[in-house]
């Protein structure tokens, strides 16, 4: 983005640029912890931190969907992840009915839902060339409509299978199990994005679509695939959400949409596409969850949370994305 990449130290400069944003994210988290410890008693206890990280891991998972779509470029963003997850959770709760034996059916339904939503998003954005934000916002409304129709017909019944509950809700010792999942997922994501041909194509389509096209990358297909992947991931996260909460309800996923995008921005991923450091995104998710905790502890509730997120996102967009013309 800025001239730093093009300076003589080349790779080293870029390295510094990447780390600079990670350091900023870490610094922001520490700042919040200090502020929290100063204003709220018992903010820095181990249990509190582990709970924060557990809640943050759900934001981080949703943020992975965003990061993939953003990395593919074309000002991609996926606002439909929240209701995709909600729809999957609502549909699969009764299918699973608290039986491990029914888990495979639930996973199949989740894959189907994710594939359908992602494909629709991908086709409308990559091939009909509509702005991703508008398409996915409309898609989110449609999914909300479907959930409403479904719940108007019958009550949401059923519980997640025990395996899902163990993965998403339970702890091993004091460490929440979902952290192990994230610890497993993060390296895989990093390797796939930075070390495989598919990752290269994804970043290429985001960084310079014309160059990618001229070197034989089917840019539209890559962007469509990114949306499909995002939809499938969001749908699977819906299963985890269900496992964590124990029941499915109408708006269970919608509160994660804004944080997932903010986490990507806080994590220092360029919204123009072409990069995707998932470690930074995880730090961003932790930062946002800590901010939420602090604002809730101060008694500012929902209003404070949204104002806080809005301010953080606005300021960081100015710092990271702002591109003032020099005169």
């Amino acid at each position: 983005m800025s001239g730093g990449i093009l300076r003589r130290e080349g790779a080293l400069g870029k390295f510094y640029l990447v780390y600079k944003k990670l350091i900023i994210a870490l610094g922001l988290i520490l700042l919040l912890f200090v502020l929290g410890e100063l204003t709220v008693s018992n903010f820095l206890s181990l249990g509190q931190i582990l709970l924060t990280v557990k809640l943050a891991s759900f934001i981080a998972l949703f943020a992975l969907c965003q990061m993939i779509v953003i990395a593919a470029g074309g000002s991609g963003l996926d606002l439909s992840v929240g209701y995709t997850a909600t729809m999957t959770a609502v549909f699969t709760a009764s299918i699973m009915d608290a039986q491990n034996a029914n888990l495979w059916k639930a996973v199949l339904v989740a894959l189907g839902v994710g594939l359908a939503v992602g494909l629709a998003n991908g086709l409308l954005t990559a091939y009909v060339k509509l702005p991703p934000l508008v398409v996915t916002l409309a898609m989110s409304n449609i999914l909300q409509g479907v959930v409403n129709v479904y719940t108007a017909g019958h009550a949401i019944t059923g519980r997640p299978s025990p395996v899902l509950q163990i993965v998403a809700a339970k702890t091993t010792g004091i460490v929440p199990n979902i952290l192990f999942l994230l610890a497993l997922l993060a390296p895989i994501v990093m390797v796939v994005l930075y070390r495989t041909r598919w990752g290269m194509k994804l970043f290429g389509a985001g960084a310079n679509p014309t160059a990618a096209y001229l070197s034989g990358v089917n840019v539209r297909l890559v962007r469509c695939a990114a949306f499909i992947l995002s939809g499938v991931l969001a749908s699977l996260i819906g299963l985890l959400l269900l496992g964590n909460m124990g029941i499915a309800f109408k708006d269970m996923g919608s509160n994660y949409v804004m944080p997932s995008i903010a986490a990507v921005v806080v994590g220092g991923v360029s919204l123009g596409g072409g990069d995707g450091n998932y470690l930074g995104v995880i730090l961003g998710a932790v930062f946002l969850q800590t901010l939420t905790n602090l604002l809730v502890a101060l008694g500012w509730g929902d209003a404070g949370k949204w104002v806080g997120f809005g301010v953080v996102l606005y300021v960081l967009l100015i710092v990271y994305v702002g591109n003032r013309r020099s005169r």
Partner: protein
Amino acid sequence: MSRRNRRISPLGRFIGKSEFSRLAILAAMFTLTAVLQQNFFETKAIVRNINAFMPLILMTMGQAVVIIAGGLDLSAGTALSLLTCVLTTVMKKSDPLTGVYALAAAFAVAMAIGVINGVGIGYLRIPPVIITFATSYLWLGIGLFLRPVPGGEAVDWFRAFYNAGLVEGVPAWLKAAGAVFPPALVLILIGCALWLIVARTRTGRYLYAVGGNNESAYVSGINTAAVQMRACLINSGFIFLTALFFVGQNQSGDARMGDPLTLRAIASAVVGGIALSGGRGSVFSALVGALIISFVNKIIFFANIPNAFQPLFGGLIVVLAIAGSQAYALSGKRSVEAGRLP
């Protein structure tokens, strides 16, 4: 060459224009609604329809100005909600004078909203969808601060923005006029007048230049940032007018009531022929688009669809409308231009 210059009658030229297809669609929707709604031409029904359509029309006109200038405002709906919260928080039912304070406060907030969006879009050149997505949560949060649950109070004379007949002590002739000529229509006409004035100024032309090609507008010496800022401020003006109507109608504020209007306004603008890429269309095409979407909703209402299905159909219509308009626009271009390239 000679074939190019062949004389086409004015009527033929009109039919060839893309506006024609949209007006034809509007006429068809109008006729269909008139057939379905039995008392469509009675004054009462007309007034009711105008009241029902008015918020979307004004919001679309505001949105159109921003889109023409190369932006997009995802925060319009929550900004509207915030303004209703501000109005109903400042007003005390017992004291008519608080209404004036509320008007001033809400106008100031509306302008602040325009400035904050305008700085992000114009001066800092952050992608409009993303920056207004961020600010939409700002407005939502502030709205929730003021009004955690829907409610609040409004002075009695504020009803004049909805129906002059409901206000006590209004002269009889004004009541009679209000029954035929609803305040909602007056607000729409104020909006139209606002645009007519803007379109006559240099800013009006600059809006198209900046939206069409920001770079070349900039190198031709146009202060593109200031122009986009003005677009955001004009949009805020339209949102302010809509908020007056809402509070006049409901006498209460709600931090979440405006949300669905954002997307419907964008869809209406696209259906009206305003390209999301900017630089094309006019606020009057926004009017046509908003009317088409409103009539479609009305027709769906007559189709007797169960309540639970209405949001679903609303969402589907938005997607179909936007995708259809875009596909239509793409099919008109030469295939190379329409984009082998991403």
